[in-house]
């Protein structure tokens, strides 16, 4: 978890960004469900479990952003491997641009960078 955060606040912030994070992680390399949970944990969100990730993956499959392929395993059960589709990559690019713009604005506000004229008008 990101240091110094209230867990509830962290969960609220993550709610709007987790699908984007999953797409980004899957765009690096396809993964099966549990593997993706581990990647999310290593990325800095160890409290986000399968119970949260699997329904999101299901939604992204429904939206055509992620595809799943069942791979036979020589040792052990078959595995579903999730990969980002072309539509998913395009959506990730849009979301990334939107996120970066959002972070810029929030960063400016937090740094007190709002022009003084605008502040005096409010």
């Amino acid at each position, binding site marked *: 978890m990101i240091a110094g955060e209230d867990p509830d606040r962290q969960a609220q912030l993550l709610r709007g960004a987790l699908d984007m994070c999953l797409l980004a992680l899957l765009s690096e390399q396809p993964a099966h*469900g*549990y593997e993706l949970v581990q990647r999310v944990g290593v990325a800095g969100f160890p409290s986000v*479990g*399968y119970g949260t990730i699997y*329904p999101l993956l299901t939604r992204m499959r429904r939206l055509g952003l992620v595809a799943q392929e069942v791979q036979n395993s020589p040792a052990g059960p078959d595995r579903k491997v999730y990969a980002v589709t072309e539509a998913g990559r395009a959506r990730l690019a849009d979301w990334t641009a939107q996120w970066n713009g959002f972070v810029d604005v929030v960063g400016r506000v937090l740094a007190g960078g709002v022009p003084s004229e605008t502040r005096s008008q409010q």
Partner: protein
Amino acid sequence: MTVDQAITAAAREWRRLGVPTRDRQTLAADLRLDLEAALADGVPADQLIDGDVTVFARRLVEESGVRHIPPRYGQIVATALAGAVVGALAGVLVVAGVYMILVRLFNLPGDFNAPAPLAAGIYYGGIGLIALAGAVIGVLLLLRHVPAIGRTAAAIAVLTPLCALVVVPLIMLFARATDYSTEIAIVLTEVALSIIGFAAATTMARRWSLTHRPES
């Protein structure tokens, strides 16, 4: 919790939510693949899901976009019960009215006596049928905006008489065991048994209409 137990718990919740059979099977098969793969990696199902399986199952249905219908058991049972009460009151009047008309039309011999079970069957059966009609009409009219209510009403019409075949003999046995007492506690118990039986039939009817609805 084993993979089978997790799947069974999730499937039970999907069934309760009114998810169609085919969608339940697809969701379960998908989930099973993931849970079995994780188990092969040494992570049991309960550790992987890490929480209430029913909450997880609900969330999964919402995110998957599967069309499901909220069961609304309480609302449907209450409406059917209210309709049945109105129907039963109307039934008493109708049966009494029909009886009076028959008395006027047919001049039966003074020593004519209908067998008691037949007379009781016609009397209570008549009231019961009109009460059932009241329940079905009440549900159809008052809950017409509720999805799959037509199938539910049809199922109520079929299941209630079947349920009555079980419940009525039980009530008769109870009445006999209590020497046909008219004490308030005994009568209230008999009424409660009738209500419980009817509520059970209505709940089963709704459940059936949701879990066996035609695929769209």
